[in-house]
């Protein structure tokens, strides 16, 4: 169903009009996990638009390199590194390499994650471990590695975590990610408290549907149009507005902000009525655990 013509859909400025000057992150380096594609690449580009050099971490080096090329095209330095963020030694080595090539890491975007619709009873031990540990252990390991280095240097820094719109409601048909993304949000608040004395800020964006080539929504056969109609804002998010808000939390503009989880989902997670269509358990949904996959 298309959005009726009399509805008004709020839209962001275009990609080439970022909300901050091109030198807001000048002489700084950001490390973005899962930065080679999708939402991580959007974060990386947003930091690059503010002048940051970018270390792109990815499990798949080719994909990280593809992302790094796109980032470098924005006029900053970018360096791709293969890394499994669940492995603390690999994380430390990736920070070493990034700092050797680009200089001290003063900004961190924890984006690495995996997600797919699946019934809880069908989640294998491997799948559970992968989805929860990339997000939970990965965010912790990268953040603590970052913080130890900043504290040792006597300098502050900023971290932004990519969480999700379903963290306060649960997500039937997606138990692994429901657990993982909430852990990221709740650890955001505690990490912020622990590191406030060191001038390290930690915030998270609880992101809604930002369709891209590698997202479940972006791969739908029907495209994203049916999703647009179901979201109160009348559209899925433009991926660069997610990147911008993420990067904004790391700018001096929001220099006092820490421990916050900002929901950016066009009202999607709040869309609820007392009277709704009949409840169908994820197991019985004709079109898969999410109802359309």
């Amino acid at each position, binding site marked *: 169903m298309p959005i009726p013509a009399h509805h008004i859909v709020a839209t962001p400025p275009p990609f080439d009009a970022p909300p901050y000057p091109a030198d807001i992150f000048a002489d700084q380096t950001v490390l973005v996990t899962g930065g080679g594609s999708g939402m991580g690449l959007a974060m990386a580009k947003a930091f690059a638009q503010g002048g940051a050099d970018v270390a792109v971490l990815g499990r798949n080096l080719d994909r990280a390199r593809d992302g790094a090329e796109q980032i470098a095209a924005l006029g900053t330095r970018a360096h791709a590194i293969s890394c499994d963020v669940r492995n603390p030694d690999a994380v430390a080595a990736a920070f070493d390499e990034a700092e050797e090539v680009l200089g001290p890491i003063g900004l961190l975007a924890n984006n690495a994650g995996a997600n797919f619709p699946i019934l809880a009873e069908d989640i294998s031990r491997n799948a559970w471990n992968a989805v929860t540990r990339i997000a939970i252990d990965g965010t912790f390991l990268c953040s603590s590695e970052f913080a130890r280095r900043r504290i040792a240097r006597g300098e502050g820094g900023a971290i932004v975590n990519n969480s999700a719109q379903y963290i306060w409601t649960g997500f039937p048909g997606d138990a692994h990610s429901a657990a993982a993304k909430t852990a990221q949000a709740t650890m955001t608040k505690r990490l912020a408290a622990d590191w406030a004395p060191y001038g390290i800020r930690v915030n998270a964006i609880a992101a809604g549907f930002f369709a891209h080539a590698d997202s479940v929504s972006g791969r739908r056969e029907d495209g994203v149009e049916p999703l647009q109609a179901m979201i109160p804002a009348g559209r899925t998010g433009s991926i660069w507005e997610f990147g911008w808000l993420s990067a904004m939390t790391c700018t001096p503009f929001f220099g006092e902000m*820490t421990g916050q989880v900002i929901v*950016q989902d066009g009202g999607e997670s709040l869309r609820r009525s007392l009277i709704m269509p009949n409840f169908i358990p994820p197991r019985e949904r004709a079109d898969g655990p999410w109802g359309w996959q």
Partner: protein
Amino acid sequence: MSGWLAGKRARIEGEGAAVTTAIEAAGAVLVADGEGDCDIWVHIAPHSEIKRAHEIGHSEWRASLDAGLDRRFLGAQKFAAECRARGQGGAVLFVGAPEQALGADHAAAAGALGNLTKTLGVEWARDGIRVNSILTRTSEETLGHLAAYLVSDYAAYVTGAVMGIDLDD
């Protein structure tokens, strides 16, 4: 941030230097009540006195709820009606203290306001009217910048959101 609110007209109700300064610095023209249409309505609630619940008289309770909740709803309702009449979207922002920062009067008002924010953000989404809240103890620069960002088109996908700034918020 000079371009965030270029061409926008904003009405700010209540006292808050950081918010007012930032919204003007972001390029918005401030419009007084009754001086015409605006694209943005910001309500900044005064902080009520902190008293223990059994020491709050009913008139004080009522005044706090009036400023922290009723006035905000009525103002948003009027602003949204103006937006709809013009066929334009808009942005509402409520600014105040966190739920547990003051007394029981404020706790009630701020909790109500939070869920009102979530409700109106969805109810008016297809009018292109966004509704958000900042509940914080801080009153400095970041508050102003965050406020200006939230009422700008850069936050076009943020609605029904309630956030703070500081760890204590």
